[in-house]
């Protein structure tokens, strides 16, 4: 019962802040709402017993991305010299496409049997994630490190001062 209530509260927070992200007129407010939505997602992860992922979500997403986006807004605002407001266009068509997609996914979910209860996880989940990453998935893990290095170099190259 507690799980249902927590899930309902988190869903309202997540959907509400997601709507605010795509609808708010001020770009800065949209970013702050995104931070709220990402924190709500961390709550959902906690509800799914994934404490480690909730921590990663807060550190990388809510911490990292929000900081980068805020910096980008501040920089571009200085370049443009006016407040970054944003408008939406073609709302009707886009809303139709989104609702049709949601209805399609919901109908597919309704037609297929899904598990109704959680199986027991074998042991401590965080420990399991750590062990599996460094044994079975060690190659993708190292590739990820290379990817992040390449991404960082690329970002620095793009944002280099004009010469």
């Amino acid at each position, binding site marked *: 019962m507690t799980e249902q209530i927590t899930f309902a509260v988190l869903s309202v927070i997540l959907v509400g802040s997601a709507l605010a992200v795509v609808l708010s007129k001020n770009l800065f407010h949209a970013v702050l709402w995104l931070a709220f939505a990402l924190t709500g997602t961390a709550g959902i992860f906690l509800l799914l017993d994934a404490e480690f992922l909730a921590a990663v979500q807060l550190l990388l997403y809510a911490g990292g991305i929000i900081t980068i986006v805020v910096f980008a807004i501040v920089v571009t605002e200085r370049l443009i010299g006016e407040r970054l407001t944003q408008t939406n266009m073609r709302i009707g068509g886009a809303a139709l496409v989104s609702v049709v997609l949601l209805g399609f996914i919901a109908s597919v979910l309704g037609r297929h049997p899904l598990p109704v209860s*959680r199986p027991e996880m074998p042991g401590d989940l965080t420990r399991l994630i750590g062990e599996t990453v460094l044994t079975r998935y060690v190659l993708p893990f190292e590739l990820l490190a290379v990817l992040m290095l390449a991404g960082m170099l690329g970002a620095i190259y793009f944002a280099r001062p004009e010469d």
Partner: protein
Amino acid sequence: MGLQPYLLLSATVFSIGLFGVMTRRNTIGILLGIELMMNAVNINLVAFSRYTAAVSGMIFTVFTICITVTEAALGLAIVILLFRVRRTVMADHLDLLKG
């Protein structure tokens, strides 16, 4: 509680993100929509992983979170570069490749 509510929630957030990507005219706004969609995918991965007791889904989520952060950093670098060249953020003004 079953798996279905989590998948429905994730589908809702994904649709909202798609709506944002389609309607926003500001490039940074489009990026925020993409972040929402990625986030919905992560909820899906973790929920499936938990309800099938397979840890691979959660490791996938760690990877997708890291890749999304890289993508956001690069995307914003490109946005800043575009500002230097075109002095605009609006996606419909960025028509350099239009023949």
